[in-house]
Protein backbone atom coordinates (compact mmCIF):
# COMPACT_ATOMS: atom_id res chain seq x y z
CA UNK A 1 0.00 0.00 0.00
CA UNK A 2 1.34 3.41 -0.90
CA UNK A 3 1.89 5.89 1.87
CA UNK A 4 0.03 9.19 1.85
CA UNK A 5 2.97 11.24 0.68
CA UNK A 6 3.66 8.98 -2.26
CA UNK A 7 0.00 9.12 -3.20
CA UNK A 8 0.04 12.90 -2.99
CA UNK A 9 3.16 13.16 -5.11
CA UNK A 10 1.74 10.75 -7.67
CA UNK A 11 -1.31 13.00 -7.91
CA UNK A 12 0.88 16.06 -8.46
CA UNK A 13 2.73 14.23 -11.20
CA UNK A 14 -0.46 13.16 -12.92
CA UNK A 15 -1.95 16.65 -12.78
CA UNK A 16 1.15 18.42 -14.02
CA UNK A 17 1.32 19.15 -17.71
CA UNK A 18 5.09 19.38 -17.76
CA UNK A 19 8.14 18.43 -15.73
CA UNK A 20 8.62 22.09 -14.83
CA UNK A 21 5.10 22.33 -13.47
CA UNK A 22 5.60 19.12 -11.50
CA UNK A 23 8.80 20.46 -9.97
CA UNK A 24 7.05 23.71 -9.08
CA UNK A 25 4.15 21.92 -7.43
CA UNK A 26 6.39 19.46 -5.64
CA UNK A 27 8.54 22.26 -4.28
CA UNK A 28 5.51 23.75 -2.59
CA UNK A 29 4.63 20.55 -0.77
CA UNK A 30 4.72 21.20 2.94
CA UNK A 31 3.22 18.76 5.39
CA UNK A 32 3.94 21.26 8.16
CA UNK A 33 6.25 18.96 10.03
CA UNK A 34 8.03 20.92 12.72
CA UNK A 35 11.35 20.28 14.31
CA UNK A 36 12.15 21.48 17.78
CA UNK A 37 14.51 24.45 17.24
CA UNK A 38 16.48 23.65 20.37
CA UNK A 39 17.13 20.16 19.17
CA UNK A 40 18.09 21.44 15.76
CA UNK A 41 21.11 22.97 17.42
CA UNK A 42 22.27 19.79 19.08
CA UNK A 43 23.97 18.19 16.15
CA UNK A 44 25.79 20.33 13.71
CA UNK A 45 25.64 18.52 10.42
CA UNK A 46 26.87 18.56 6.88
CA UNK A 47 29.49 21.19 7.46
CA UNK A 48 31.02 21.85 4.12
CA UNK A 49 34.22 23.75 3.88
CA UNK A 50 34.03 27.25 2.45
CA UNK A 51 30.37 27.09 1.54
CA UNK A 52 28.00 29.90 2.33
CA UNK A 53 24.90 27.99 3.39
CA UNK A 54 26.10 26.36 6.55
CA UNK A 55 23.83 23.51 7.36
CA UNK A 56 22.79 22.26 10.71
CA UNK A 57 21.45 18.80 11.14
CA UNK A 58 18.63 18.62 13.59
CA UNK A 59 16.94 15.81 15.33
CA UNK A 60 13.23 15.73 15.77
CA UNK A 61 12.14 14.08 18.96
CA UNK A 62 8.65 13.36 20.10
CA UNK A 63 8.13 15.78 23.02
CA UNK A 64 6.24 13.04 24.83
CA UNK A 65 9.28 10.81 24.79
CA UNK A 66 12.16 13.14 25.41
CA UNK A 67 14.95 11.31 27.22
CA UNK A 68 15.65 14.29 29.44
Amino acid at each position, binding site marked *: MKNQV*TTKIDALKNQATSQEEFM*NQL*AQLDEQGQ*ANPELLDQVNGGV*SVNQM*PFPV*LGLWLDPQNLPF
Partner: protein
Amino acid sequence: MSSLLCPSSIAKPGAALFGVQTAAGQIEYLEQPIIVDQTFVDKARQGRAPEERFRFASNCAKSGCGHWDSGQSGCSLVGKVVDAMNRKAAETLGACAIRTNCRWYHQEGALACASCDEVVRNVRIQATTV
Protein backbone atom coordinates in the same frame (compact mmCIF):
# COMPACT_ATOMS: atom_id res chain seq x y z
CA MET B 1 31.92 0.83 -6.55
CA SER B 2 29.73 3.82 -7.23
CA SER B 3 29.78 6.67 -4.74
CA LEU B 4 27.71 6.23 -1.63
CA LEU B 5 24.92 8.71 -1.01
CA CYS B 6 24.75 11.16 1.85
CA PRO B 7 21.16 11.01 3.19
CA SER B 8 21.47 14.47 4.68
CA SER B 9 22.13 16.49 1.58
CA ILE B 10 20.97 20.01 0.95
CA ALA B 11 18.42 20.74 -1.76
CA LYS B 12 20.37 21.25 -4.95
CA PRO B 13 19.89 20.36 -8.60
CA GLY B 14 20.58 16.68 -9.08
CA ALA B 15 19.86 15.73 -5.49
CA ALA B 16 17.48 12.84 -4.91
CA LEU B 17 14.39 13.68 -2.90
CA PHE B 18 13.65 10.49 -0.99
CA GLY B 19 11.50 11.53 1.94
CA VAL B 20 8.99 14.08 3.14
CA GLN B 21 8.61 15.23 6.70
CA THR B 22 5.09 14.66 7.95
CA ALA B 23 3.08 16.81 10.30
CA ALA B 24 4.13 14.41 13.06
CA GLY B 25 7.73 15.36 12.37
CA GLN B 26 8.78 12.01 11.02
CA ILE B 27 9.83 11.08 7.55
CA GLU B 28 7.70 9.27 5.02
CA TYR B 29 9.93 7.67 2.45
CA LEU B 30 9.14 7.70 -1.24
CA GLU B 31 9.06 4.45 -3.14
CA GLN B 32 11.26 5.98 -5.79
CA PRO B 33 13.57 8.95 -5.32
CA ILE B 34 12.84 12.04 -7.38
CA ILE B 35 15.78 13.90 -8.86
CA VAL B 36 15.11 17.56 -8.30
CA ASP B 37 16.17 20.32 -10.65
CA GLN B 38 16.89 24.04 -10.50
CA THR B 39 13.19 24.85 -10.88
CA PHE B 40 12.42 22.83 -7.78
CA VAL B 41 15.23 24.37 -5.78
CA ASP B 42 14.33 27.92 -6.74
CA LYS B 43 10.67 27.44 -5.89
CA ALA B 44 11.34 25.51 -2.70
CA ARG B 45 13.62 28.25 -1.41
CA GLN B 46 10.69 30.67 -1.55
CA GLY B 47 8.93 28.75 1.20
CA ARG B 48 9.99 27.09 4.40
CA ALA B 49 13.51 25.71 4.10
CA PRO B 50 13.26 22.64 1.88
CA GLU B 51 15.66 20.77 4.14
CA GLU B 52 13.09 21.06 6.92
CA ARG B 53 10.34 19.67 4.72
CA PHE B 54 12.12 17.07 2.63
CA ARG B 55 15.04 14.69 2.78
CA PHE B 56 17.60 14.77 0.01
CA ALA B 57 20.46 12.51 -0.89
CA SER B 58 23.46 13.23 -3.03
CA ASN B 59 26.91 11.78 -3.52
CA CYS B 60 28.97 11.69 -0.34
CA ALA B 61 31.53 14.46 -0.59
CA LYS B 62 33.97 12.53 1.58
CA SER B 63 36.91 14.82 2.40
CA GLY B 64 34.97 17.79 1.01
CA CYS B 65 32.62 17.60 3.99
CA GLY B 66 33.40 18.67 7.51
CA HIS B 67 32.00 15.42 8.85
CA TRP B 68 34.42 13.21 6.96
CA ASP B 69 36.71 11.33 9.29
CA SER B 70 39.81 10.62 7.25
CA GLY B 71 41.18 8.36 9.96
CA GLN B 72 38.15 6.11 9.83
CA SER B 73 37.48 6.80 6.16
CA GLY B 74 33.86 7.42 6.97
CA CYS B 75 31.17 9.87 7.99
CA SER B 76 31.43 10.92 11.62
CA LEU B 77 27.94 12.35 11.70
CA VAL B 78 26.00 9.10 11.53
CA GLY B 79 27.71 7.87 14.68
CA LYS B 80 26.63 11.03 16.48
CA VAL B 81 23.08 10.60 15.26
CA VAL B 82 22.92 6.97 16.34
CA ASP B 83 24.35 7.84 19.76
CA ALA B 84 22.03 10.81 20.21
CA MET B 85 18.91 8.89 19.27
CA ASN B 86 19.92 5.72 21.14
CA ARG B 87 17.43 3.60 19.26
CA LYS B 88 17.40 -0.11 18.69
CA ALA B 89 17.63 -1.46 15.18
CA ALA B 90 14.36 -2.75 13.83
CA GLU B 91 14.23 -6.38 12.81
CA THR B 92 12.42 -5.44 9.66
CA LEU B 93 13.46 -2.28 7.93
CA GLY B 94 10.94 -0.05 6.25
CA ALA B 95 11.26 0.65 2.57
CA CYS B 96 13.85 3.24 1.64
CA ALA B 97 14.70 4.15 -1.90
CA ILE B 98 18.36 4.93 -1.22
CA ARG B 99 19.31 2.34 1.39
CA THR B 100 21.44 0.17 -0.87
CA ASN B 101 23.70 3.12 -1.63
CA CYS B 102 23.34 5.01 1.63
CA ARG B 103 26.55 6.10 3.37
CA TRP B 104 24.92 5.91 6.79
CA TYR B 105 23.48 2.43 6.22
CA HIS B 106 26.78 1.30 4.77
CA GLN B 107 28.51 2.32 7.99
CA GLU B 108 25.99 1.65 10.75
CA GLY B 109 23.52 -0.75 9.16
CA ALA B 110 20.04 -0.91 10.62
CA LEU B 111 21.01 1.35 13.52
CA ALA B 112 21.27 4.22 11.06
CA CYS B 113 17.83 3.45 9.67
CA ALA B 114 16.37 3.37 13.19
CA SER B 115 17.28 7.00 13.71
CA CYS B 116 16.98 8.30 10.19
CA ASP B 117 13.26 8.92 10.14
CA GLU B 118 13.53 11.52 12.86
CA VAL B 119 16.32 13.45 11.30
CA VAL B 120 15.75 16.64 9.47
CA ARG B 121 18.37 18.83 8.06
CA ASN B 122 18.14 22.51 8.62
CA VAL B 123 20.02 24.99 6.56
CA ARG B 124 20.66 28.38 8.00
CA ILE B 125 21.61 30.67 5.26
CA GLN B 126 23.67 33.59 6.31
CA ALA B 127 22.11 36.87 5.44
CA THR B 128 24.14 38.31 2.66
CA THR B 129 23.51 41.91 1.92
CA VAL B 130 25.78 43.42 -0.63
